[in-house]
């Protein structure tokens, strides 16, 4: 049948016809339909905002051999925890990485981190500082580049045991912020880091998770990893990483490379 537009108002539905139609009420959604629907929705991967690097995808890509080999080799990895409580400074072995969960599949494929003994050590429970202090300080010596940044940061997070929501949440809940910072420039103090985060345009409530003192395009710099977004339950859903020159000057800020990463 052909269709045509009609003018004028649609007449009200005839009461008797309306009564007949109303007689058939569908009722609420059956529980089995709702259960199936919930299961289907739960099986869907969380949406990844545009521009966000999906950590799960990136890890798969990296494992398939397409990514640059990073952070590998014995030359490399020095995990520097933050600062221990005075009572722990001489006796307690520093944790491998504060906040690192036991589920760190990628740690098995990278050299075991060594804790430096030069005063750049470890964090401690109980000494909770203000929010802008990171949970972890690391010095990997990586030279971060724009092209390889997603793969490099993915590797960094994997190494630090922050590669999924549960692990990051464990860091946030179990590891206190460091109480002092051993590096130069932005990594020299909580105040310097806070100032740099502000200059980078990150919101004041940004929660730094980790600072990796390294090089950026061959110049001394740092990777700062912060919590990007949280869900309504307060669980982190994405991270934000910035590669920036160590002094966080105006030039450094202008040249900084930003990266959002969706947590699986």
């Amino acid at each position, binding site marked *: 049948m052909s269709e045509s537009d009609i003018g004028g108002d649609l007449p009200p539905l005839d009461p008797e016809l309306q009564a007949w*139609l109303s007689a058939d009420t569908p009722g609420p959604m059956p529980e089995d339909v709702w259960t199936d629907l919930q299961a*289907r929705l739960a099986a869907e991967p969380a949406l990844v905002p545009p521009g966000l690097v999906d950590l799960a995808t990136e890890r798969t890509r990296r494992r398939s051999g397409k990514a640059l080999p990073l952070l590998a080799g014995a030359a490399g990895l020095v995990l520097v925890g933050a600062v221990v409580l005075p009572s722990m400074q001489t006796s307690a072995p520093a944790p491998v990485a504060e906040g690192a969960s036991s589920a760190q599949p990628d740690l098995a494929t990278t050299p075991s981190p060594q804790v430096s003994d030069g005063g750049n050590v470890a964090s401690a429970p109980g000494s909770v500082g203000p929010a802008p202090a990171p949970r972890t300080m690391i010095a990997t010596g990586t030279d971060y580049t724009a092209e390889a940044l997603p793969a490099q940061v993915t590797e960094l997070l994997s190494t630090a045991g922050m590669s999924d929501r549960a692990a990051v949440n464990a860091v946030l809940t179990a590891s206190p912020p460091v109480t002092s910072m051993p590096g130069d420039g932005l990594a020299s103090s909580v105040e310097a880091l806070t100032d740099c985060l502000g200059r980078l345009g990150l919101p004041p409530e940004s929660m730094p998770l980790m600072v990796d003192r390294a090089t950026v395009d061959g110049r001394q710099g740092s990777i700062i990893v912060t919590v990007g977004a949280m869900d309504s339950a307060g669980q982190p859903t994405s991270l934000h990483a910035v590669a920036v020159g160590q002094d966080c000057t105006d030039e450094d800020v202008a040249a900084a490379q930003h990266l959002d990463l969706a947590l699986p």
Partner: protein
Amino acid sequence: MSEQTDAELLAAHCAGDPDAFTEIVRRHRDRLWAVALRTTGNREEASDALQDALISAYRRADSFRGDSAVTTWLHRIVVNASLDRLRRRSVRTWVPLPDEAAGESPATLIDDSRLADPRAAVESSETVREVRDALDTLPPDQRAAIVLVDLEGWSVEEAARALDCPIGTVKSRCFRGRAKLAERLAHLRNPDAPGAVVLPDNGGVTVDGEGGAP
């Protein structure tokens, strides 16, 4: 989470919150189910259409531009998924209208004693079945228009947006659908009831290009 608006929840979903979308669906599940069931007329197809639609909406949430309510957007997707299934099904089965069918009158299915009281007729499961059968005979587009406007209470404008067609087309579909339903269900009519069904005679409605209801 329950304090957030639908739009806020959808934004949270787009930002990676894995629970936000399910919360939106939880809020509106009964109405979405009603639309799917009434449009498809079949429980299994309604369930499948709903899943197809909501998974699609979950994945395409970032395409929501906020020019309508989130619920309108979801209903639109559910209606279209239901229509897709209905169209596929209508290719396979088509029940002829009474005047096209040869054989006995469907009035023989009705217990006449209950028709003395229209309410009794309405409450009759036989009537429900008759109504479902009658809806099932409508072409998918007419059925969807009737479901949205006459059953779900949407305005013609809202239905036109959901069905992505002109307002006049929705009115035309409703008009023709009603006429068919009235004809199909005429045997249920109580001639003594006030406002008894009268087959449409174009009262106040101008049909362009066609000579009234078929």
